[in-house]
């Protein structure tokens, strides 16, 4: 093992507890864990309590013994398939397009871009082309700003290319914008990708509260934001749809 400097003892002990619980199908009590690990019961109690709170360990209510938690078992395979996300969101995306009378979009992050995974035409029966599978820039789209604001990796690759005069190209301004997106729970795109076009988006979260996608609408400036900012009516349609999908994913 490479020498990585100082380690945190309680994390090592937590790992040892998890390894021991994973070593067989049986449940273990505190006394057995203490014997197996050569640690005092008092030390184990605090670590076990923490592991139970985060869901990595479960305590059998009848015997008081411990076993690995469901959260831990699903940790390695719990990413949400994009096609599953579309299937679960399709009714709500239709309803969003229906209510707003604009096109509805769902995107996920893919290698630094927004991948469009679902697109509902604007319901005016005009000629439109399905955009599923295309990419949008993260810093210049409402979907991208929502995804970026909640992405643990956080930053888009610099430089930030301009698409219009309104595109945010300064990393500090973008960071301030993302802070705003996190604070109010939705993002706006004011002619930053295409002149004359406005978009609004909000985050879709999975059952663990992690943002797995963004849903939004896109349309003409004069309809969505005739007086400067986006009309709040549209913002609430988008947020309602995002919440409905989030609720659905929690089931």
């Amino acid at each position: 093992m490479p020498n990585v400097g100082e380690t945190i003892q309680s994390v090592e002990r937590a790992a040892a507890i998890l390894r021991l619980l994973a070593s067989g199908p049986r449940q273990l009590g505190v006394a057995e864990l203490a014997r197996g690990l050569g640690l005092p019961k008092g030390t184990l109690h605090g670590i076990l309590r923490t592991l139970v709170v985060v869901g990595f360990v479960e305590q059998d209510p009848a015997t008081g013994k411990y076993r690995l938690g469901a959260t831990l078992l699903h940790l390695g395979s719990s990413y949400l398939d994009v096609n599953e996300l579309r299937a679960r969101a399709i009714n709500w995306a239709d309803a969003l397009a229906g209510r707003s009378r604009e096109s509805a979009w769902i995107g996920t992050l893919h290698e630094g871009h927004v991948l469009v995974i679902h697109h509902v035409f604007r319901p005016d029966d005009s000629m439109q082309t399905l955009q599923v599978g295309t990419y949008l820039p993260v810093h210049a789209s409402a979907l991208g700003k929502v995804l970026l604001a909640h992405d643990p990796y956080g930053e888009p690759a610099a430089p930030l290319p301009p698409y219009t005069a309104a595109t945010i190209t300064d990393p500090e301004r973008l960071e301030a914008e993302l802070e705003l997106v996190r604070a109010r729970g939705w993002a706006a795109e004011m002619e930053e990708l295409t002149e004359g076009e406005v978009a609004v988006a909000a985050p879709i979260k999975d059952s663990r509260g992690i943002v797995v996608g963004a849903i939004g609408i896109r349309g003409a400036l004069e309809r969505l934001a005739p007086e400067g900012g986006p009309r709040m009516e549209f913002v609430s349609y988008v947020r309602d749809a995002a919440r409905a999908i989030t609720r659905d994913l929690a089931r």
Partner: protein
Amino acid sequence: MPRPTYIAAIDQGTTSSRCIVFDRTGNIISVAQREHRQIFPRPGWVEHDAEEIWQSVQLVLAEAVGGVDGDIAALGITNQRETTVLWERDTGRPVCPAIVWQDTRTAPLTHALAEHEALFKGRAGLPLATYFSGPKIRWLLDEHPGLRERAERGEVLFGTMDSWLLWNLTGRHVTDVTNASRTMLMNIHTLAWDDDLLAALGVPRAMLPEIRPSAEVYGRTADGVPVAAALGDQQAALFGQTCFDPGETKSTYGSGSFLLMNTGDRPVVSKHGLLTTVGYQLGDTPATYALEGAIAVTGSLVQWLRDNLGLISSAAEIETLAKTVPDNGGCYFVPAFSGLFAPHWRSDARGVIAGLTGFVTKGHLARAVLEATAWQTREVVDAMNADAGLGLTTLRADGGMTADNLLMQTLADVLAVPVIRPMVAETTALGAAYAAGLATGYWPDLDSLRANWHKAAEWRPEIDEAAREREYRNWRKAVARTLDWVDEQEFQQ
């Protein structure tokens, strides 16, 4: 401000019961869903517990309506068709498990009825197949001692799921004309139970519900909501897609897939393996007929890949798996699990995976599964074009599988026409809501419903004719290999 009003629809399907609440523009306001058990007592047998289904329906109705800030103006019902429930008039309790439409136990019986084939085709508009309710009723009356006598005395009642739910919701023993058209007992021309058909199948008239139009107030729920529509699921989807004019066609992708073409006020008898069925009947107006192509296994093949092979953990992941490879790798999957339905009607067929080589991976298999749905659709579209004498120009697709973009693209490729998904993919429930809303004046007329229809997505063909023909040829070779699998002796057992 007055409270908003909405229309609720119960969609009692093969795998789950749902309740969806719609607003005046046809947008979904709330949804509740609950799955029920699929009971497989023997190979080829599929049963449901009607009591469990009624419990589920009550729960989803309460949940969907409870989550809405407004009033429910009317309730519509749409249902899995042909599934046969027998219950006691006195207690309202089912006397046996419901036999589901997919169940093939009546294969020997339908063979034995072959002498009446022309009668069924001419009067009921249906081919002789295990699919329909009549033979299922007959099987139950034959197998359960004393049941026939009780049915003759009117103590035991028959109903399809619409009838079972209407009985429980309103206390009346009625069925809608579209469901009745799937029993092999109703005369498709007179829309009444037919004595010759009853005699051929040996079903007593006393056990049958009263046939009513698809849209009228049948009664009220315990909460006073008018129950104002009932339509078989595929007819409801036709209605929900606003296919009100002759020639308009829709295709619904669920467990099975069903193409229906509106043929106006006259029944068209198919020469190419399609069914003649009632599309809908609004109040006391004349009925509208439809030609139907029924495919037994499409979405349920994806479920099979998930549940029986464990290759995917959710149905939607089939697209992810299929996209790991660029094509089918030479592999074709014909899911003739309960024989082949339209346009073949071969109950002796069983499933085949053809073209296997060491090269084929689970990704190719996933492609073959999706392509099976597309090619089965192509066969039915060819039959429909031949019967109607005109070529389909676009396909209006709906149902859960329309969330699968690869499938929709593949459909456009094999049909060589654009495939369109309407704004509300839940056309089945929407159709029941539309019919209930028309019956109660929530919507004034058909034009107000047409105005609600919008295109949500469109896929255009991307492959060339040579590739299409090559693949179709291979598909047909694979289909040929499914035939003559179950032989005569096995049918007798």
